[in-house]
């Protein structure tokens, strides 16, 4: 047990929590925006995967990691746009549409990877670029805080920035107001002249945009190449984080950090003699527990409301 504490209470561990939280946080913010507009974007996992590959491919062919990042984000937004087109125009069931996106991504990325590199496993033969890590001038010299918060990938800082942007967008901008009103009561929003379809389109595109950033981080920050199915369930964990965070920006951020910690713990515990297969299930077990805790508390709240209504 003491060796467990030795693993957890280090600045390296805290640093790695932030490192592994980044893609989850991006995708969770994406899930948050679309959920607030009343659509659950199940395709996040696939969107991240496509974006991760696009980032690698575009950066390899242009020689620039920033253009690669743009490619990744555009690919994420595009896939999200396709999903939006099918669900909003063709009335495809949103969950099945998301499943289709995921299925497409897991095979389609391998297909494209093979065509471009002749390899079905990873993009080792493509000279892809990596987004830089940043040392923060004053912060990096402060003991404890410095080693934890400085020296991260630029996208990790962008994910933290994104939390504030999303918070502000949802609370303070007309778009945020429309998104929330459409999510809470589409008929009412429609009756005051808000175009529900347009708002949901925007929300889904934004959700793809953020998932795209998360995907780009996977292949151009967290790792420096693309490997098949490299998102490894992070899109799903993000959806769980959003729902456990009760669809609020602050809650979603905190639960994303919790899942990041579980993930980092799974990585850190591999030095102990616990089989990696079992450790690997830790984030998923956390997710299930989180979902259950949330659902139980919600159903209690509902029951209380019902009771007071009956009494009143």
């Amino acid at each position, binding site marked *: 047990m003491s060796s467990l504490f030795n693993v957890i209470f280090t600045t390296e561990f805290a640093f790695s929590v932030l490192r592994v939280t980044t893609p989850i946080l991006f995708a969770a913010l994406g899930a948050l925006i679309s959920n607030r507009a009343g659509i659950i974007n199940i395709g996040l996992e696939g969107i991240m995967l496509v974006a991760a590959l696009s980032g690698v491919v575009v950066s390899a062919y242009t020689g620039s990691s920033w253009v690669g990042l743009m490619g990744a984000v555009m690919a994420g937004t595009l896939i999200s746009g396709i999903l939006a087109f*099918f669900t909003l125009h063709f009335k495809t069931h949103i969950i099945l549409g998301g499943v289709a996106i995921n299925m497409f991504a897991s095979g389609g990325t391998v297909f494209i990877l093979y065509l471009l590199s002749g390899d*079905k496993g990873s993009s080792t033969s493509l000279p892809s670029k990596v987004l830089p890590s940043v040392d923060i001038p004053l912060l990096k010299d402060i003991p404890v805080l410095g080693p934890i918060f400085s020296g991260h990938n630029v996208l990790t800082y962008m994910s933290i920035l994104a939390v504030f942007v999303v918070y502000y967008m949802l609370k303070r901008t007309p778009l945020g107001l429309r998104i929330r009103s459409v999510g809470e009561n589409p008929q009412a929003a429609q009756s005051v002249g808000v175009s529900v379809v347009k708002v949901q389109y925007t929300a889904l595109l934004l959700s793809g945009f953020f998932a795209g950033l998360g995907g780009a981080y996977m292949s151009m920050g967290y790792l420096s190449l693309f490997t098949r199915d490299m998102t490894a369930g992070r899109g799903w964990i993000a*959806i769980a984080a959003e729902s456990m965070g009760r669809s609020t920006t602050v809650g979603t951020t905190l639960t994303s950090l919790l899942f990041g910690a579980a993930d980092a713990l799974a990585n850190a515990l591999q030095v102990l003699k616990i089989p990696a297969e079992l450790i690997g299930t830790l984030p998923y077990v956390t997710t*299930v527990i989180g979902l259950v805790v949330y659902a139980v508390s919600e159903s209690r709240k509902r029951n209380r409301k019902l009771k007071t209504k009956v009494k009143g």
Partner: protein
Amino acid sequence: MKVKYFEVIRTTAVILIALVLAFIIISIVSEQPLESIRIFLWEPLNTKGHIGNVIEMAIPLMFTGLAVSLLFKANLFNLGAEGLFYFSGVVAATLAIHLSLNSFVHPIVAILAGSLVGALLSAIPGILKAKWNVNELVSSLMFNNILFGIGLYILNYKLRDAQAFAAVSFKFEKTAMLSKLIPGTRIHTGLIIVLLLIVAAHYFLYKTKWGYELRMTGANREFAGYSGMKTAKVIVIVHLIAGFIAGMGGSVEVLGMYSRFQWSSLPGYGLDGALVAMLAKNNPLSVIGAALFLAYIRIGADQMARFSDVPAEMISIVQAIIILLISAEQFLKFWKNRMLLKEAQRNV
């Protein structure tokens, strides 16, 4: 043209669109597109062995397709058949290695054990949904990863044959393996089991009170609740049955097709089951055709990957298009409306 044939026409149209798309992709990718398309379409039917391959692959697809159909019919978006299929396979493999029984009882014991474990594990997301309304989609997907982790642990630490060069288990006892039905192919008795199961599911769904309750709960859970059905119980029972079927599928696949357990990743039949269920419109009898179709294009893609320059993953793009269009309510709706209008005018 009758409106009742509309769904058939629509499904056919979707499949045609998907195939045309496949041809377009092949034409872009391949150096010799016509030859590639010929292999894709014709090779699965070309030899007895290849027809055998199609049917062999359709067996697990029928199992998971049937399991997912029942869940979808109850309006439960649960994709847990994936993990159950895998884990039950591990259970069946364990018993196939460690028990010694005669060749009649051995597979029955191993398959039933796998099915029961599948049913019990499937009940967990079911109970969570029924009691607290935990989103079954997310929880079942998390369970897939959890069951995979535990299954892989059992394979690597308990079943693994150190003498073998790959991550595979010890060999199954000969008595545990399912016998082959048709010489020259690997089609095994699992085919009979799944066909019987499909007929039973059809009977259950359309001829029994429980089946009626399941369909009503799926159509409108609140309404079913108000009319006196215990919808929570129905949800748990559907999960038990679907888990049993998925578990049986995994066990049958392992004992029918292999002599060792060798899945070091999720085999994917659970998610494919969702596709089969959608093609079959959640109708048990149609699962047979849907599974055969999917197996046919898969084997076609495999053969194409082997004998031409088009990778087999091409098929996942086709599958995504099929799902998107099949579940698209508005797709060809204008045509249905026109048909309805004509029929109404005729009746006036």
